[in-house]
C-alpha cells in the first residue's frame, strides 16, 4: 500500500518555488532516506506530508487523504526537527506526559529508558537544553511515539558522533520491533545509509531519484584512467561526475548502463573500475554542477 503519494506537487513562496512538479510514491513500513542539499525542498516536502504546509499546486495524499488540517493524519504522524517549539511552561517530564496522552502507540518505558540513557534532565525546560540535547530529546519523542508515519527532518543536528550512532541504532532496533514508515532527511548520507531501505534524492524542489538503497549503490560506476580513452568510449550524457586527476588522467562517475562490450573495452585499455559509494553518489547527483570544487580553482 502506498502511504504517501504526491502528484506534481508545487509550493511557491513569494516568487520562488520550494517544490516544483514533485511526484513521489512511498510504500508502507520502510525506512526511507530523503537526501538533498540545504534548500533543496526537503523540509517543505516533509512539512507538507505532515499537514503543516498547504501546497500551491498538485496533489498530496497521505494515508489516502489530504494531510492538511487532518485529524487522522495528525494522530498517526509525528514530525520531528530541531526547531520543535514546546510550551515554555512545560518541563521535559510534562511534555512526555502530554505525548503519552496524544499518541496511542506511545511507549513510556522506551521513552524513559532513552531519556535516562542519553542523560536528558527530566526537570529541565525544553528551551534550557543544549542544542544537541534538544535534538536528542526530540528524536526520543519521535521514536517513542511509534507513529505509523514518523518523519525526522535532519534529526541529528547538534548531536555528537556517538549520539548519532546510538540514535540510528535505536531507530533501527525499534523499527525492527515495530515496523512503520520512517522518513529521515539529511544532507549527509554516509552515517545513515546502512539502515535505509530506500533513498529519495531531491534537488531544486524535484524528486530526481527514488531507488532501493541496494540499487542505488549499483546505480553508478567509477572509471579512472586515460582521459581520451574514457571520453572516446563513454557517452557524454551519462556522465554524473567528472574530476581531473592529472593532465591526462581523469575520474568519471557514470550511469551503470555500460554495455559488456564497452566494459571489456575499457578494461583492456587499462581503465580502473570502482563502485561509487552511496554518499558520494548522492553528493554528485544533488550538486548543481557536474564538476567539483576543483573546477572553481582551475585556470582556464
Amino acid at each position, binding site marked *: 500500500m502506498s502511504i504517501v503519494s504526491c502528484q506534481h506537487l508545487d509550493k511557491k513562496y513569494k516568487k520562488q518555488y520550494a517544490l516544483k512538479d514533485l511526484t513521489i510514491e512511498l510504500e508502507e513500513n520502510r525506512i526511507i532516506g530523503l537526501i538533498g542539499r540545504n534548500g533543496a525542498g526537503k523540509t517543505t516536502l516533509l512539512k507538507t506530508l505532515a499537514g503543516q504546509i498547504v501546497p500551491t499546486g498538485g496533489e498530496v495524499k497521505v494515508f489516502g487523504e489530504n494531510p492538511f488540517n487532518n485529524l*487522522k493524519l495528525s494522530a498517526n504522524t509525528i514530525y520531528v526537527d530541531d526547531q520543535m517549539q514546546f510550551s515554555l511552561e512545560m518541563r521535559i517530564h510534562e511534555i512526555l506526559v502530554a505525548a503519552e496522552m496524544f499518541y496511542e502507540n506511545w511507549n513510556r518505558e522506551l521513552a524513559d529508558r532513552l531519556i535516562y540513557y542519553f542523560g536528558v534532565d527530566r526537570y529541565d525546560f525544553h528551551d534550557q537544553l543544549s542544542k544537541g540535547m534538544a535534538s536528542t530529546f526530540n528524536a526520543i519523542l519521535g521514536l517513542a511515539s511509534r507513529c505509523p508515519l514518523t518523519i525526522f527532518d535532519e534529526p541529528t543536528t547538534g548531536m555528537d558522533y556517538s549520539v548519532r550512532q546510538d540514535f540510528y541504532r535505536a531507530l533501527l532496533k525499534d523499527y525492527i520491533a515495530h515496523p512503520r514508515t520512517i522518513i529521515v532527511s539529511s544532507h549527509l548520507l554516509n552515517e545513515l545509509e546502512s539502515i535505509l531501505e530506500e533513498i529519495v534524492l531531491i534537488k531544486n524542489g524535484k524528486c530526481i531519484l527514488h531507488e532501493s538503497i541496494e540499487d542505488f549503490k549499483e546505480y553508478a560506476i567509477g572509471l579512472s584512467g586515460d582521459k581520451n580513452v574514457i571520453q572516446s568510449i563513454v557517452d557524454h550524457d551519462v556522465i554524473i561526475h567528472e574530476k581531473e586527476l592529472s593532465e591526462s588522467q581523469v575520474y568519471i562517475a557514470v550511469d551503470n548502463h555500460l554495455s559488456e562490450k564497452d566494459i571489456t573495452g575499457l578494461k583492456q585499455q587499462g581503465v580502473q573500475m570502482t563502485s561509487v559509494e552511496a554518499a558520494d553518489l548522492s553528493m554528485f547527483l544533488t550538486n548543481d554542477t557536474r564538476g567539483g570544487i576543483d573546477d572553481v580553482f582551475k585556470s582556464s
Partner: protein
Amino acid sequence: MSLSHPDLWSVVNKQFKYKWMSYKSVFQGLMIAQIIAMVFSLFGVASSSMGFGFIDLNIQYITGDFVFFFTCLWAFFISVALDRNENRLADQIFVTNSWSRHLANVVFIVIANMIGTITVVTASFFVKMIHIWIFGIDGFIFFGEYTLPGMLIFFIITFFYLILFSSLGYLIGSIMRQGKLIKFGVVLFVGGPLIFTDNSYLIPLFQFFGDESSVIWFILKILLTSMLAIGLTTLVSRRLEVQ
C-alpha cells in the same frame, strides 16, 4: 502498523488537558491581576464629590469593580495570546487540526472564565472585608443587599462579560496573526484611537452591552457577539499555516 482513528471530541478533550497543563501562567496572571486590583481598591474604587450646603461631601464607593474590570482585561489578553504562533507550534507537535484546536481553546476559555468569575465575586467581598477590617464597621454605609437572585445575577453577568472580552480578544488575536502589516494596522486603528481620542465612539458599544438591564437580552447579545467573533476567527485562521 494499524492506524488510529481519533474522534474529534476525544482530541478536543486531550488538547484541553494539554492546555491545562501547559498554561499554568494563565492562572498566575489571574491572581496577579486580581491582587493588583484589590490593592487599588483599598484606595476606594470610585468617588464622587458633592456639596450639601457648604459641606463638601466626598463619597467613596467600596466595590469589587476594579477586580471585575481587571479580570475582563485578563480575559481579553489571555484570549489574544491563546492561539498565538508559539502555542500553535506547540499544539502541532501533537495531535490537532484547526477544528479541534479552536474547540479546545473555547473549552479552555469557558473554564478559565468560570474560575475567573468565581474569583471576581469572592474577591469583591474580600475587598469589602479588608476595608471593614481596616476602618471598622461603623464608618460605612451599606447600599445594596446581596440576595440570592442578586448573587445569581452577579455570577451570570460577570461570566458573560468575561466570555465577551475573551471572544473579542480571540478574534483580534487571530486577525493580528494574519501578517505583520495587519498586526500593525490593528495596533494603529484599534490602539491609536484608544490612546489619542476621547473614545466617544465607544459609547454606543458600551451602551449596547452596559445599558442592557434585561438579563435575557444581555445573555443573548453576548452569546451572539461571541459566536460571531469565534466564527470569524475560525474563518480568518482557516488556511493559516504555522510559520
